[in-house]
């Protein structure tokens, strides 16, 4: 069994594809330097990431694949799942080995695997459009709308354009509490931000009350009351509710907080 090791970058995966075709060797695993070597491994190969390899493969990729497939690949990469490297690798090898476009051959397990993981990531992205809740906060006299989220995959970059277009006339921050980074929109540009570790701004993923605008809790309360009032008691069905709105998001959804804040 052959194993490739790479530097955990997207450029690295594409360089691995280049090397594989060069060596005519097809690895079973593509591991990062910290991954443990599996049993029965007979050969280990270290992929050197270079701009030249990356450019060659990425040019070939954009030429050979429709944009839908390219989007799927970038979703898969941003999923940050451990298997992402080998999935993309197998997919690209398959694409380059034949002449015609096989990106629609969903009967093929490798192609379906890419599609399915990409779909999961796309779904998480859609969840983010649904379940982001902005809180108006005071930042040195400035009103900023701040939202803290905990998505399964690293998908903040994929929703920026959406929020930038939608909330063009307000300053906002979208913060990923799992990966501890976020983006700030200042009415013109979106830039990446980190919160100071010693800051008391966030406590357990929740914004410290002292920073909230004076009306903010009341708006949360109104939203909570509104959602209670629109519920039809005769039709209560919590299972259905949880299916459509997974509980892992509830922490950031005022309408699900049972005590009125």
């Amino acid at each position, binding site marked *: 069994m052959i194993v490739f090791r790479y530097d955990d970058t997207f450029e690295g995966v594409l360089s691995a594809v280049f090397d594989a075709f060069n060596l005519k060797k097809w690895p079973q695993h593509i591991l990062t330097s910290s991954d443990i070597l599996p049993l029965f491994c007979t050969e280990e190969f270290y992929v050197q990431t270079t701009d030249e390899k990356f450019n060659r493969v990425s040019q070939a990729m954009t030429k050979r694949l429709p944009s839908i497939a390219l989007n799927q690949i970038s979703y898969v990469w941003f999923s940050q799942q451990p298997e992402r490297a080998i999935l993309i690798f197998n997919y690209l090898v398959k694409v380059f080995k034949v002449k015609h476009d096989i990106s629609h051959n969903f009967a093929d397990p490798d192609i379906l695997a890419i599609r399915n993981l990409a779909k999961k990531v796309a779904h998480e992205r859609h969840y983010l459009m649904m379940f982001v809740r902005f809180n108006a906060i005071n930042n040195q006299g400035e009103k900023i709308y701040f939202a803290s989220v905990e998505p399964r995959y690293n998908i903040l970059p994929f929703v920026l354009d959406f929020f930038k277009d939608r909330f063009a006339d307000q300053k906002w921050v979208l913060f990923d509490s799992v990966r501890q980074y976020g983006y700030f929109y200042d009415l013109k540009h979106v830039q990446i931000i980190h919160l100071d570790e010693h800051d008391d701004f966030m406590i357990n993923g929740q914004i410290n009350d002292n920073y909230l605008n004076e*009306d903010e809790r009341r708006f949360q309360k109104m939203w909570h009351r509104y959602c209670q*009032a629109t519920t039809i008691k005769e039709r209560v069905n919590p299972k*259905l509710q949880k299916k459509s709105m997974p509980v892992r998001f509830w922490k950031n959804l005022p309408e699900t907080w049972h005590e009125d804040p």
Partner: protein
Amino acid sequence: MIKDSTIKKLEILAESAKYDVSCASSGTTRKNQQGGIGSAHGWGICHTFTADGRCVSLLKIMLTNFCLYDCAYCINRRSNDIRRAAFSPKELAELTIEFYRRNYIEGLFLSSGIIKNADHTMERMLRVIKDLRTVHNFNGYIHMKAIPGASRELVYQAGLYADRLSVNLEIPTEDNLKRLAPEKDHQSIFLPMRHIQQHLLENKEERSKFRHAPKFSAAGQSTQLIVGATDETDQQILQLTAKLYKRPSMKRVYYSGFIPVNGYDKRLPVVKDVPRIRENRLYQADWLLRFYKFDVNEIVNDQHQTLDLDMDPKLSWAIRNPHYFPIDINRASYAQILRVPGIGVRSAKLIVSARQHGRLNLAALKRIGVVLKRAQFFIICHEMQSFKLQNSSPEYIRLSLKEPSLPIMAVPQQLSIGLE
């Protein structure tokens, strides 16, 4: 500072609006314009789900729940002793914006009780949505209810600011409507419906000549039917639906299982539970009309006036029509494949694109997402031994595919078909 009275009003008027089932925010795409607030997305976005499992996409609210009318099925009828409230147009527009800024909602769904007369009410509603668009520079979604009997000019005005207009039919037949809602008749409902359609078509033509002519109710219109309050059969209901869908502007017909909000009214039937399964079956049949190109007479006809409660209408049709099958997955057209129970729009599309690369077998179908439990009786494909339907009687299939008695509730879902 928000007043306590605003919170109270919000509660009362949300409570009053909750029986309206429509909540979709799909059908228009609008980018943010001139640095204003908001945008609309073609497939719509839900923002939360209430404890009854229904999606909340829009701030569904009434401008007021005072009402002149006395419709038997309506919680807000004149003779009911309930808490009443009214927003001022300005107040409601501001509230909508505040909710929108926090990403609670996609926009506004505005309805109202009828005060003074139809036109007076329409004018006040119009002021809310006009404020949103012109004062607040709001580009999000707006759905407004047209009031039965409102004048043509006001309907036109409303359509210039709203993405969707709707008029609720409520009761499918004229006689029953007259009985339960003496102040309404089909004429007062169908007339504004027709106005909306005419304006929409005229607008389309105008826009083809002048690119910058404002859009009129771009997401079309919708309507709602109450199911189970009166004695109409599924056949009558679906025939009406099909007729409505023939109109180019009608985008959705919603079905609302009857909830006895006024138990004391002798004209209404005594029911214990909301007819959820029937409602669900109607939505499934509706889906067959819109996305599967079924003709209404294939689903319900004089021999089959009611939908089968034990199985979905597509399966029920397939069992009644064995001569359509077997369908060869590797050869049949997209339209034919779409008719197989267990294969939805998404799987049918995947099948058609995947088979260009090689013959499909059962394992591949399963991977693609076909529900073989149902589909196996109706298809043949590569490596499949024989056609199952021939060896099984309709009764056998019916029994083996009967759904467990626990119903899945019908949700008026956002459309999200085949999106990548």
